[in-house]
C-alpha cells in the first residue's frame, strides 16, 4: 500500500486553480521528487499535504487513513514532517531548542508536572536535548550546538530545519527546496544528507529546482505543470519525456524548430 495517496485534489485561490484535480501516490521508503516550472503548484501541494491549506476538493490519505480534515498538528502526530522554502525558524530560541521543539510529540507535556518541574519533566528535557544534539550532528551542525538561531548563516538554518523535522521521527518527510540558495559544495552535502535520511527508512519527498540534485537522488519523479500531473516516472523516463521538455524550455515557435 502507498504511504501517501492524493486523489482528485484541487485548490483554488479566487479563480486560480493552483492544484487541479491532481492524483498520485507516494510509495514507502524511497526518494521522490516533485518538479515543475515556477507556479506549477508544488509548494501549494506541500501546504495541502501538511494541512496549512484546506483543499477545495479531493482527498489525501496517509497509510490508508483519510487525513484531509485533520489540522497540521494532528498530521504531524501521524508522521508527516516538512521543511519550508522560506525558512520558518524559531529565531527567538537557540539552535538546539529549535530541534527540541521538533521532539514535541514525543515529550511529556502535561501542564502541572511542567509547572512544578517534576522529575519526569526534567528527564524528558534531558533526553530531548540529547536527541537534539545527535540530530544536529547527523545533519552536520556540530559547530552550531551552542548557537542562537538568529546568529546562524542561511545554509546552516536549512539543515537546522531538517534536524527539527527529523526530531519528530517522521514516516514522511517533505523537503521544500532544500538546496535553494546553496553553493555547489553545500548542495552536494544536502544530496548526501537526503540519501542518508532515506537510507534510515524515512520516505522523502523533495521539491527542488536543482535538476542535477533531483535527477541524481530521486527514485521517482512527479512533474507538475499548472497544478496538474504532466509526467511521472524514473529520472530517465522524465528526462526523455517531450511534454516535460516543452514545459521547461517552452514550445518552439512554429517555423523555427
Amino acid at each position: 500500500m502507498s504511504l501517501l495517496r492524493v486523489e482528485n485534489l484541487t485548490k483554488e485561490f479566487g479563480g486560480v486553480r493552483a492544484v487541479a484535480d491532481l492524483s498520485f501516490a507516494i510509495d514507502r521508503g524511497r526518494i521522490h521528487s516533485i518538479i515543475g516550472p515556477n507556479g506549477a503548484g508544488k509548494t501549494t501541494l506541500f501546504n495541502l499535504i501538511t494541512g496549512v491549506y484546506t483543499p477545495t476538493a479531493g482527498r489525501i490519505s496517509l497509510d490508508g487513513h483519510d487525513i484531509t480534515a485533520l489540522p497540521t498538528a494532528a498530521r504531524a502526530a501521524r508522521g508527516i514532517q516538512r521543511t519550508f522554502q522560506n525558512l520558518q525558524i524559531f529565531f527567538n530560541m537557540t539552535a538546539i531548542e529549535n530541534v527540541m521543539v521538533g521532539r514535541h510529540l514525543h515529550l511529556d507535556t502535561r501542564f502541572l508536572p511542567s509547572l512544578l518541574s517534576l522529575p519526569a519533566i526534567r528527564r524528558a528535557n534531558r533526553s530531548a536535548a540529547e536527541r537534539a544534539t545527535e540530530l544536529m550532528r547527523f545533519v552536520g551542525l556540530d559547530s552550531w550546538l551552542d548557537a542562537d538561531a538568529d546568529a546562524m548563516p542561511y545554509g546552516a538554518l536549512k539543515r537546522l530545519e531538517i534536524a527539527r523535522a527529523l526530531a519528530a521521527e517522521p514516516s514522511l518527510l517533505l523537503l521544500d527546496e532544500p538546496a535553494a540558495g546553496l553553493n555547489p559544495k553545500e548542495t552536494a552535502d544536502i544530496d548526501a544528507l537526503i540519501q542518508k535520511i532515506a537510507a534510515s527508512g524515512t520516505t522523502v519527498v523533495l521539491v527542488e529546482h536543482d535538476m542535477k540534485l533531483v535527477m541524481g537522488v530521486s527514485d521517482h519523479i512527479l512533474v507538475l505543470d499548472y497544478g496538474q500531473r504532466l509526467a511521472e516516472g524514473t529520472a530517465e523516463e522524465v528526462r526523455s519525456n517531450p511534454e516535460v521538455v516543452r514545459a521547461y524550455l517552452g514550445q518552439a515557435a512554429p517555423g523555427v524548430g
Partner: protein
Amino acid sequence: MKRLPLGTGGLLALAAIVVFLPFVLPNNFYFDVAVKTGLNAIVCIGLNLLIGYAGQISLGHAGFFALGAYSSAILTARYGWPAPLAMLTGAVGVGLIAFVVARPILRLKGHYLAMATLGLGIIVAIVINREIALTGGPDGMTVPAFSIGGWRAVGAQTWYWIVGGALLLAVWLSLNLIDSGVGRALRALHGSEVAAATAGVDIPRYKTLVFVVSAVFASLAGSLFAHADRFLTPVEAGFLRSIEFVTMVVLGGMASTFGGVVGAAILTVLPQLLAGFHDYKHLAFGAIMIGVMIFMPKGLVPSLAMLLRRRPRAGAGP
C-alpha cells in the same frame, strides 16, 4: 540546559533581596510600596508568559486582576466566605472566563487581538462600575482582612512576607514552565506558528493554556491586593492599569521572567517615591515605552544580559 543555572541564580538573588530588603525599609509606607511592587510583578510574570514568550498581546489584564480582587472582596464581605476559598473561587472563575474567551479572541492577531483584549478589560470595568449593590460602584468597597482560622493577616509587614513568598513561587513556576516542553512550544508558536504546528504543537490549545495561566496569575495577585489594601475601587480594572502592566513587561524585558519583575519594580516604586511625579505617571509611562522601543526593544533585563555576555541571544533569556 545552560539557562537553568542562570534562572536558579536569579531566583536565589531575588530570594536574597526579599529576605534582606526589610532591613533597609524605614517604615510601613515602604513596606506597602514593596507589597504593591510584588503584586504587580506577579501579574507581569503571568503577562510575560503570554506577551513575551508566546507572543500574544493583552491590553485587558487589569480586568482579570480586578475580577480576582472583587471576587475575594465580594465573597468575603457580602457572603462571609473564608478568604482562601474566595481567592481560589475567584481564580477558578477567572480561569474559566479566560478559557471561554480565549478561543475566539486568540484566533486574532496583532492589532485585532489588542482591540479584543482591550474590549474585554473595558467590559469588566463597566460591570464593576455599574453593579453598585455588589461592588459599591465608583465609590469602591472595603474588604475584610485575610484570615485563616483565628489568624488575621494585617499590616504592611505581614503582607510583605506573604507577597514576597508568592512572588518567589510565581517566579519559580514561570521558570519551570519556560524550561519544559510546554514552554518551548509556547516560544515556538511565537517564533513561527506554521512551524510550531508542523512540529505537532496544537496551536489553539497552547494559546488558550497560556492565556488562562496569565489570567489566573493576575486573578491571584488581585485577590491578595484586595486583602492587603482592604479597599478596592474600579480604577483597578481600568484600561490604564492594563497599559501599566504591559509597560512594565516591555520595559523590564519581554520573554524574561526577571524582566517582568524588574519592570514592575521600577514602574511601581518610581511614582511612589517621586513626589509630584504621580500626576504625570501615565505621561511618563508613555515616554518610557517610546524610549525603550527605540533604544532597547528587547527590554532592560535581556539588553543588560546581552551586554554582560557580549554574545547576542534572542529574547529567550530566563
